[in-house]
């Protein structure tokens, strides 16, 4: 009787596993892909090391504009010497701790709100108090804070103000418009369609122009609205029309049976929407909604055309200073990084939210 011999377990050939296997399967699986890989590697070799040399090694970090021109690499001095103007614009220099503190409160609240288990009543109160405090800090006028007119607001706080209020107000408005567009009531439906199509039919720039130039013409003499507020309203109106169409897509994806089941247990229209339809429909459209919100965030930079000094405009102002002229690459890279951080955290958060909400599938 033959003895069973313990054979050493056979492993797949070395060319199919591990690093070599991966490289073979993903980079060199065919003539075309191999050529593509080699060309790409060559381009990376040509581009990446010089970039690092420019950005990190030959660069000037904290010098005058004059000294910068001698340096072979990037002139980050334009940021380090001007960061307070870029971030806070014309806000009085001595008072700039106030917008800084306001922003920190905002970031703190946003960070704490990440976790859905924190979405309870106290958080709502925290937001109300937080928003009130932020407004107080920015505007001043009491508690010994000197008054700062909103015409002096600028830079990152202005961008964040327009973005945060713009997005949080546009989203619910968009949902209401989407529901209105699918309403049985013909008047409501017609109004919503008219609104959505009119707003989508014009560029944001023209809305901003209208809000700053044409709208005041219709106001009685002596009555004025804050310019930032007008831009804010224009952004909200514009974004909500796009959100409405995205949400409508989600609503159309809901089966008739869900409505019928909700109705058959006696839920009225409002409860059917709130408890059954919207939770499902809004979840489906998280990806396009976030795209829309990200694009709205970036669109806030268009307020430069009505002479509001948002982050992009303050950066450009620094560039028009003779001492720093010509360092636009560095300045724009810096602004791009700030915008990227904002957009990337939004998309990151949406992915987290999607994961959490997909338990039922």
């Amino acid at each position: 009787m033959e003895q069973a011999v313990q054979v050493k377990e056979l492993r797949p050939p070395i060319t199919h596993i591990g690093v070599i296997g991966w490289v073979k399967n993903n980079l060199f699986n065919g003539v075309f892909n191999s050529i593509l890989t080699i060309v790409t590697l060559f381009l990376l070799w040509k581009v990446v090391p010089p970039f690092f040399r420019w950005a990190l090694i030959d660069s000037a970090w904290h010098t005058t504009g004059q000294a910068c021109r001698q340096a072979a690499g990037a002139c980050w001095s334009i940021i380090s010497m001007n960061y307070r103007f870029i971030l806070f614009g014309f806000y009085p220099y001595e008072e700039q701790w106030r917008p800084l503190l306001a922003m920190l409160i905002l970031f703190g609240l946003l960070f704490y709100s990440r976790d859905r288990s924190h979405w309870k009543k106290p958080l709502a109160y925290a937001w109300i108090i937080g928003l009130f405090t932020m407004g107080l800090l920015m505007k001043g006028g009491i508690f010994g804070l000197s008054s700062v007119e909103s015409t002096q607001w600028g830079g990152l706080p202005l961008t964040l103000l327009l973005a945060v209020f713009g997005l949080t107000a546009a989203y619910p408005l968009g949902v209401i418009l989407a529901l209105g567009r699918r309403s049985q009531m013909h008047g409501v439906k017609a109004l919503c369609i008219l609104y959505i199509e009119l707003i989508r039919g014009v560029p944001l720039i023209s809305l901003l122009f209208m809000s700053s130039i044409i709208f005041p013409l219709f106001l009685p003499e002596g009555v004025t609205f804050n310019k930032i507020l007008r831009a804010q309203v224009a952004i909200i109106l514009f974004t909500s029309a796009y959100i409405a169409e995205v949400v409508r897509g989600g609503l159309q994806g809901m089966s008739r049976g869900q409505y019928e089941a909700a109705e058959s247990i006696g839920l009225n229209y409002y409860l059917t929407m709130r408890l059954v339809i919207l939770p499902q429909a809004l979840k489906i459209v998280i990806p396009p909604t976030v795209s829309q919100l990200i694009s709205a965030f970036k669109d806030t930079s268009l307020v430069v055309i009505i002479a509001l000094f948002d982050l992009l405009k303050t950066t450009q102002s620094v560039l028009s200073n003779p001492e720093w002229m010509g360092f636009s690459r560095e300045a724009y890279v810096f602004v791009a990084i700030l915008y990227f951080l904002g957009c990337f955290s939004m998309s990151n958060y949406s992915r987290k939210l999607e994961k959490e909400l997909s338990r039922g599938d």
Partner: protein
Amino acid sequence: MNTEKKASEGQMIEFIDVHKWFGEFHVLQGINLSVDKQERIVICGPSGSGKSTLIRCINRLEEHQRGRIVVDGIELINNTKNIEKIRAEVGMVFQHFNLFPHLTIVENLALGPIWVRKVPKKEAEEAAMYYLDKVHIPEQARKYPGQLSGGQQQRVAIARSLCMNPKVMLFDEPTSALDPEMIKEVLDVMIELAQEGMTMIVVTHEMGFARSVAHRVLFMDFGKIVEGNTPEEFFKNPQHERTRLFLSQILH
């Protein structure tokens, strides 16, 4: 069971010359029907005959265009409050279950009681557990509908309706979307419900169920109730040619 005399405590549902059109198509052509309290009715008929539309008119998922429908003394008219009141009293079970996929089973069941009946959450969930027990799946309470089999989902759907303490239950082809091995578990729950004296109107082709449970079997064709009779008479002695043809097709 059907031999026992039903306890007639008065009328639950009444149709008086009800007509309905889908565009040009005349789906219901003068329906007259009276359903007593605790009566169990099975409606059968070829597809497109209007049987689903008929029961969907009872809780206003479809609107009738002529005639009158009275449910538990309330006439169905175009009044939102009125309709919501009737819907809370009328349970409905659908062919495709229509559970709410984003809620757990127990949340599905407690939704109506909490929001329509204003029952405290804890109490509503206790009631939900009681009814889940009745349909024999208390262990699934914390799962989501997508994790359950078709038969289990349909039993949850029945329990969801029962949670509202309905006076009448409507079943719209409750077993048509199920795999054959799951039909029995759903029918068993329906039979138990019948034994407790629930008023039921069931659209189904399960003739075994009709035989053992129904007080009356109705046959519908082309938007009319062609005939209605006790199960024995209906199956033994169908009066109309169309009924005989239909029965021969489905009974083989």
